């Protein structure tokens, strides 16, 4: 194979990446701008990051976002893993196709509709909107992502491992706990990180489900921008990009590592 890339490949790569990342790059650069005017560069400074630490409103919103993220992604991981397990291991039961379709439907459902229907539900059952309702809403939509990640791992899982556990005296729950779960842990962690990232990002559903006392960061940023973009928001957004990027990269590293290790084990398995 030719080791050097052709000029065509180089051009398309550059254009593609520029299209994807140039806006974010500009945002990150301007977060280090010392001028108060967002569009005029006046030298390097980190003062907006410092200001951010004194802005109680932003700090409150960040704290809400973090709590919502941890709670909803944990709940979504538990439910999503359970759903994936039933889907892959449950065999053929009545309504299986419908059930699997319904688990994956929120993936393609417009967020506005999910948000609106949740809002209607909360009003109908008289639930006061606050952190709890955002957690519920985020759990609902991120659970299906977790179940996709975990079920794809379970599909390649050697069923006889579970049978061996049963054969050696485990109850079905014990077999899941001491054999299946430890082996699929990387996928479960990936699922959790994915759910956490999604929860951190979400604006639409959160704005339907949030109450006056529970503003998440994306909502806060969105409403602040309407009054004008400030360098402070650039700084905040840069931090969020950092967190999300870390989450996504960690997720992909975990799954890539797990795949590589699995391959290696299989390779060694065929050697005598």
């Amino acid at each position, binding site marked *: 194979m030719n080791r050097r890339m052709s000029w065509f490949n180089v051009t398309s790569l550059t254009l593609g990446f520029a299209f994807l990342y140039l806006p974010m790059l500009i945002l990150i650069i301007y977060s280090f701008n010392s001028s108060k005017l967002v569009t005029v560069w006046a030298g390097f400074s980190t003062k907006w990051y410092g200001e951010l630490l004194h802005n109680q409103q932003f700090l409150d919103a960040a704290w809400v976002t973090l709590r919502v993220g941890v709670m909803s992604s944990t709940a979504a991981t538990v439910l999503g893993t359970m759903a994936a397990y039933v889907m892959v291991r449950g065999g053929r039961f009545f309504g299986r196709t419908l059930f699997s379709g319904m688990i994956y439907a929120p993936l393609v459902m417009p967020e506005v509709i999910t948000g609106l229907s949740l809002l209607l539900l909360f009003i109908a059952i008289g639930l006061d909107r606050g952190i709890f309702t955002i957690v519920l809403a985020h759990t609902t939509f991120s659970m299906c992502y977790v179940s996709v990640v975990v079920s794809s791992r379970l599909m390649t899982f*050697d069923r*006889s*491992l579970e*049978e*061996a*556990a*049963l*054969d*050696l*005296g*485990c*109850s079905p729950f*014990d077999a899941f706990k001491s*054999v299946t779960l*430890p*082996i699929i842990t990387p996928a479960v962690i990936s699922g959790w990180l994915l759910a956490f990232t999604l929860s951190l990002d979400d604006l639409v559903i959160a704005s339907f489900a949030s109450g006056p006392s529970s503003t998440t960061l994306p909502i806060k940023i969105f409403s602040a921008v309407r009054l004008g973009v400030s360098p402070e928001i650039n700084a905040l957004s840069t931090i969020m990009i950092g967190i999300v990027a870390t989450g996504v990269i960690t997720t992909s590293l975990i799954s890539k590592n797990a795949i590589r290790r699995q391959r*290696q*084990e299989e390779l*060694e*398995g*065929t*050697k*005598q």
Partner: protein
Amino acid sequence: MAEANPQKVFAPWEDPNQAPLIRFEGVTKKFGTFTAVDNLNLDIYRGEFFALLGPSGCGKTTLMRMLAGFEDPTMGNIWLDDVDVAPIPPNKRPVNMMFQSYALFPHLTVWDNIAFGLKRSDMPQEQIGDRVQAMLRLTRLEQFAKRKPHQISGGQRQRVALARSLAKAPKLLLLDEPLGALDKKLRQETQFELMDIQEKTGTTFVIVTHDQEEAMTVATRVAVMDHGKLVQVATPAGIYETPNSVYVADFIGEVNIIEGAAAPMGDGKVDIAFAEGVEPIHATIGEPVTAGQKVFFAIRPEKIHVGREPDPTRANRIRGKVHDIAYLGNISTYRVELETGQMISAQMTNARRLSRRDFTWEDEVWLSWTDTAGVVLTR
């Protein structure tokens, strides 16, 4: 059993007073419309090394999975030590299984893999260590106790799987193609190890395999299966020397099958006319045949003598031409074309060095065999 009289051969299936350890009673298993196991009756005795042999899809694995409790029979009963096992879940059965893929837990060390079942039994904590150590010693794995399954070789993994399934001292050990993943040389070594361990522990082994050589080597009795039915259950020698059907004869080892019309000659002898204008085959019958009945004469290649001259001491002598020679070192297989067009395989041991070999391609030879060398089959 054998202690009282060392001369006595281990054959509990011939003793009407022996109660079987496992009894299949009219067991049928259906998957949708497919019948995997079809109204099967079988007794397996304590201390046996029993082989279920057959091509893939013949129902042998299903039979084993029903013993382990992973499948329920559609009809019929399975008795283990006079207890109907139907309502007992796999984790409560005194049966352990060694899986084809070994199914070692990748996140646990060899030691923890072997201890896995013991920790879930009612064995006191302080005895578990001793038991695991004994198992490690039995399978010669002492120095690998701390390793993970992916850090040891295929043969070692196979032994870990064996140690793990034997650790709980089950009444019955099921082995699902236990040596399938090993290369030939290692497989042969391991077969003898398995037999050795089976004898030492006295556990009843049931092995599923599609490798006839493996079944013949390890088993006290072999059950040949086809389409969910047992075709023949007998000792390895019985299966090889007196197969009850063309299917079994053909499945185990090499065989020449010659189709012909029977002409009973009385005194247990039969003549089989297989071609126009050729002397019929003289053979001995196992089951009664009527005159003109279509029969199959089955004879193993090594029972046929190849010579330059007909051998007057053998009842059957027939002329042919060497078509092919397969030299295998210790033996040579000659494919001889008869004047009637049939191909017959005959085997001779190479007692002499190659340079003194008697026949070559296109040589005229005589095939001779006695009237008891082959078997006459009706199906």
